[in-house]
């Protein structure tokens, strides 16, 4: 529908928000934690897009990263371990008009929540998903997560982890209906913001893996990348990121990559050194589950009654119902 009178008036009196309006509680993350950078980027996005706080929801699971909704002055749902995706999908099905974000960690998403993660990709609902990947369980004081590097000594792997780390990018790129995959690092805020913004504007399941530092339990892990910009590979494209001239001067290691090229995306995603940063894959043509299911239909009293009756009928028995009778 076009933008008629009503829309114009609503726009006219729309509130403008600044960054502090989105700040919830004071973050309890450690100083130097990469989560702070992600929070800043997301708050910037909310301000720049002027997202109405009452129409924005952050859903998380369990972990350091999953404290995110507490620090946003919007709606939030601090869920249960590994179940951020189903909750967010439920929110989206009921209210497709809301801006729904998912904050999840490497343990929450790639370990206990892995099954939900795979299917959430396939459902391709319009969610902005931020995987805070610090390679360790931090909230429970240092246990190996699925993305911990091989040889990592932790409380659960005292002699060093013996398994190869899982790569969340290649996994996501391998699932049917994948529509948006990007990678950022917490220490390049400009690109972090650009990626989050691109992901937000993509209609579909926008998956961003953000590699972040854990100053407490893996303090030295990313030092080589922090000190040598050549170890970061910037993916640039007219349909992807276009770093500022200043940033491009520091990060000279660049490659032009078309986000529609999934084969090249998979190849790039496999690289751990240099760390690729940018939009790996974006396909706006993949249908969204909520569109296929016509979500957001009217919630009239009749519709609710019909739905409830249908549910209750699963547990009732009607003797005169002939061959349609069902018993629980």
């Amino acid at each position, binding site marked *: 529908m*076009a933008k008629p*009178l009503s829309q114009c008036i609503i726009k006219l009196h729309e509130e403008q928000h600044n960054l502090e309006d989105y700040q919830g509680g004071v973050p309890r993350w450690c100083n130097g934690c990469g989560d702070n950078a992600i929070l800043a980027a997301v708050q910037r996005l909310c301000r720049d897009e002027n997202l109405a706080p009452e129409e924005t929801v952050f859903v998380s699971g369990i972990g350091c990263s999953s404290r995110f909704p507490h620090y946003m002055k919007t709606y939030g749902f601090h869920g249960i371990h590994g179940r951020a995706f189903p909750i967010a999908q439920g929110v989206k099905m009921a209210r497709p008009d809301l801006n729904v974000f998912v904050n999840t960690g490497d343990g929450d998403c790639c370990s206990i929540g892995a099954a939900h993660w795979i299917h959430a990709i396939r459902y391709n609902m319009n969610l902005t998903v931020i995987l805070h990947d610090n390679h360790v369980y931090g909230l429970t004081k240092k246990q190996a997560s699925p993305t911990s590097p091989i040889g990592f000594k932790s409380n659960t792997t005292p002699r060093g982890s013996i398994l190869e780390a899982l790569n969340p990018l290649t996994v996501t790129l391998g699932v049917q209906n994948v529509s948006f995959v990007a990678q950022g690092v917490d220490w390049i805020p400009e690109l972090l913001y650009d990626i989050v913004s691109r992901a937000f504007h993509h209609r579909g399941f926008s998956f961003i893996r953000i590699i972040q530092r854990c100053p407490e339990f893996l303090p030295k892990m990313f030092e080589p990348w*922090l000190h040598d910009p050549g170890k970061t590979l910037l993916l640039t494209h007219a349909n992807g990121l276009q770093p500022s001239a200043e940033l491009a001067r520091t990060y000279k290691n660049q490659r032009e990559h078309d986000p529609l090229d999934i084969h090249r995306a998979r190849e790039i995603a496999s690289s751990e050194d240099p760390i690729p940063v940018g939009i790996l894959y974006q396909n706006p043509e993949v249908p969204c589950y909520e569109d296929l299911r016509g979500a957001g239909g009217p919630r009239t009293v009749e519709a609710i009654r019909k739905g409830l009756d249908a549910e209750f009928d699963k547990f009732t028995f009607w003797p005169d119902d002939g061959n349609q009778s069902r018993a629980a």
Partner: protein
Amino acid sequence: MDMAARFQDQQVFHMTGRRSGDGLAALDKSPMRPALFAGYRDLTRLRHDFPLVLVESGITDGYAVSLTLLVNHVIETLAPRGIEGERLRKHVLRLERELRAGLAGGAEGDLSELWATAAAKLASDADESVSKVLALAGDSLGVDGALVDCDDRLPSRFMIHAWRHVQAQKASVFHGHLDRLQRRLSDILRAAFVRSEAGQRPDALRASVGGMHADDFDFTAMSRLVSRNAPKDQLPASRRRRIEWALSVLTSQRFHASRSLPGSGEASYGFLFDNVAEAVAAYRERLPQVVELVKAIAIAELEARNDYDEKDHDPFFEAYDANSLTADDLALFPDYLVCIPVGRNDLPENASLMDTLSSGLPVKVVVQVTDLLEEASIGTGHFAFGVRSARLATAAMGLGGMFVLQAASSSLYRLRNRIEHGMGCSGPALFSVFAGAPEAAGELPRYLTAAAAMESRAFPAFVYDAAAGENWATRFSIEHNRNPEIDWAKEPFEYADEQMQRVRGESAFTYADFAMCDKRNAAHFAVVPRDRWTSAMMPAVDWLALPEREATERIPYLLAVDGDDALHRVLVDARMMQATKRCLLLWHRIQEHAGIHDSHAERLLAREKAAWEISRNQELDALRKASAGAPTVVSEAPPPAAGAVAAAVAASAPPPEEKPPSDDPWIETARCPSCNECQLINPELFLYNENKQAYIKDANARTFRQLVEAAETCQVAIIHPGKPRNPDEPGLEELMKRAEAFN
């Protein structure tokens, strides 16, 4: 008869249109048609894009689909490849032919009915299995709707159908929107009632519990209890009035017919008219209701979000009237469709049509053009080129902001997406369609006449969509014509010569060919028997290209076929050739609009080319001179291209560092990942900017030690402590050593 006399007879005919002697036969005595039509004698046996199904029900992408495509689909799904499917394929194709023949014979109806009738007819001559097979095929068609052929009524039927299709989509969106608003407003009222005193009375509570368990409760006690504890905030009277008013306007609107209760309340408005004046009158009459509904929607939208602010909005809505309506507001409502009947597109009607179109009202007008071949009313014997209507579309384009489509009825199906787009655009649209003049009916099927008008450039197809862009290149398109880049459309043409040998070639289709199809123009043509052919005769299309002096010595002819498909040459008189030339001129103008042979561009190009050549020659001369004088110098000098590259590289080289090293401390703010480390050391020294990235607030609120420590803790190493300000600070020597790594 000698050659000279023959030539003279032909010359006289060409100049005056009078046939003298027995060498030239009149066209009305021996009916001819353009040679290119030889293959299209019986259209009912030809699988082409007509007839069409104007889809009413069924799953398909568009609102119209060609019968040929439907039958192809049936065959693909039902008949297996190879010999097993052969029987079914044959029967279905026979039925398709039967349908075509039926339509040509005047049959009318929906596809399913006509299919059943035709199937019954075919099955009566064959065994029972045939009728079963055809019924099965009929069931798997998947769509149904009126089956229409390319006839006089096609333009209006097709356009009305397209318009209905677009309006139905619009209505569905509109109702979705309206239903949502109505529900939200009703919810507000219902909630208010539940909280009100009336809502908490025992009888209201009883009603809300329902019959089954009503006796289990003491509603008087419940009422007492509930009203004591219920919140006391009531819906303000002004808000209630506003909501009730908006709700009543939304429910009683008559623009889009109600989905849920058809026939309830007052009948919805009609939007289909046969003249512009009535449509405009209806628009004017309904304008107050339009304003009211737009206002109600806006108020409902604000109320549903609880955003209505009486201070801001009351004065706005009070001042809101018909002048405030925008095209986007009107786009919510159905568009008016005016189908001007064939006989009515006369001058007065056209004048009011132009007025209406230029006013920007949401009116879609369909004009059926018939007068392409009439002679001018002032009686000079010249062709009028459809002054009344055919040039209407060109004139409408001149008005600017609207959608204009001109096409022959034979190509409506091919242009269906454009038509749908035009019907759906906001603002006015004009569709000018040629379906052949009723006076010329008889000889040729309508499909061929219409196609000939388009192909001969007498009625070229074009689309002008003002909303598509800012300039002619994006707005205007003639891509639907055949060979739009050249003067006359060309078709491959094959015939057998006297020795029965195949001759292959190309034949152009000109305006004169098109005119020959109409019996009213017979006087302009004369058939020349084979033994009277002279070397002065030449194909009309080549004749048109001759300079005027040479043209007087030659006589143009067209290729035509008689009833037995024998090839003849038909001479054309000068008047008809003049009309053909004029047609070409008009076609050139349309081509120029579409950027083909754009005279301005060509002139510019020629000028630039000349300038380029001069400068190139000068450069070459200079090089030649230089190489003759001192060959070694030339080879050492960088070629101009390399110089240009070097300049470009210099231009794109990064500017120097923003912050040259100085004694002051500084931070690369843009790289700050907001990790709070520096703020812990001195929150007055390091502050966050509007993007939550650190900068140095007060360079005096610091010790050099704090700066150095901050630089050391910063994980991304973006803090540069500079030089100490206070020379008396303790431990300065050691600190400066530590600071070196970060400066």
